[in-house]
């Protein structure tokens, strides 16, 4: 419920702003990019922060366009929207020339999530993609180093940051059950 509410609040201003982008450097940046990539949605969130929504099959194309103005890839963060059955990937770009931070959002279905790699645009994407692959099981096609990265192999198989990963069961299996713990409401004895 909480997740859905948040989504609605975010969705509404995006629709309104789309028609009238402000006449600032951020607005002009979004406008230029949207003219060349009409499949994307774009909005200005505030000063020095813009946001795009891109369908996953055209993400590589869009990021290649965006990389002309946004020279740096700062992070790829992933959100697991388990009720909608989707992973949301947020490519966080930074424009050194314009000092603008851009969120490029895309959504892929949770089952067999696949995306093209963006290593050819920003080589640093290799690390972020490996991380997203390890913790969520998203496959980035074209990235040669996907595989066990930070975690132990047994956790790598389970993709522990997915919302349906049973943390407590994993802990009990791994570290034993002889701990003295109650759950958050202090009523049920969990371990």
């Amino acid at each position: 419920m909480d997740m859905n509410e948040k989504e609605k609040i975010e969705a509404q201003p995006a629709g309104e702003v789309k028609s009238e982008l402000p006449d600032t450097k951020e607005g002009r940046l979004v406008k230029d990019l949207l003219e060349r990539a009409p499949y994307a949605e774009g909005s200005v969130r505030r000063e020095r922060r813009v946001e795009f929504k891109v369908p996953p099959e055209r993400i590589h194309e869009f990021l290649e366009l965006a990389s002309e103005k946004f020279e740096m890839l700062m992070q790829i963060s992933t959100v697991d929207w388990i009720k909608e059955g989707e992973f949301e990937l947020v490519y966080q770009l930074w424009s050194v020339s314009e000092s603008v931070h851009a969120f490029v959002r895309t959504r892929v279905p949770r089952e067999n999530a696949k995306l093209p790699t963006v290593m050819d645009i920003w080589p640093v994407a290799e690390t972020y993609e490996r991380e997203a692959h390890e913790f969520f099981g998203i496959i980035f096609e074209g990235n040669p180093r996907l595989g066990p990265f930070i975690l132990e192999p047994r956790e790598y198989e389970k993709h522990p940051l997915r919302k349906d990963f049973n943390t407590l069961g994993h802990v009990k299996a791994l570290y034993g059950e002889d701990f003295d713990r109650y759950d958050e409401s202090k009523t049920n004895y969990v371990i």
Partner: protein
Amino acid sequence: MSERRDVNENDGVIHYELQEFQVFEPLFRWARKKSLWIVAFCTGCGGIEIPPLATARYDYERFGIMPNPSPRMGDLFLITGYVTPKTLKRIIVTYEMMQDPKYILTHGSCPINGGVYWDSYNVVKQLDKYIPIDVSIAGCMPRVEAVMDGIMEIMRKIESGEADGWRRYRENYDYYRKNQDELFGEGWREKEAKRWLAWI
């Protein structure tokens, strides 16, 4: 005494408690207590509590505590926060590199029972199952005064002979080894060594 020697007969280490030195034992204990060199293995959030300890206000050097570059010269192993399985492998290897007698001081709740990470897949609960701990300081995060108190406690235990984690590790090595192997799988030492060969 003789029993312990039987146990340790095969490990090829000269036992420090030779009969003829027994008379000097109180002196040795006093000397050990007054020259604790630390292996500051800064895991988790407690590493940031070490600088105030080392600098002018709390200044642990007045107790003869000194940070030192090598685990071979260390006496006191500070584990300063939560321990992940990956870190635990390094901790075990480092701990086994240290010379006897060696002591372990842990900071915070996480090494005791997981602390706030009690249901995390990646934090070792109950560190005492894998390596012997002499003094645990509870708290999240213990303040410098508490760490100071823990250090005083371990000094007291060294003088009275209660800080015998290194001896427990020798005597109950099978138990610790079993727990370690359960967590990491059989043959983890060899696998780790293979991974490190490239760096040596």
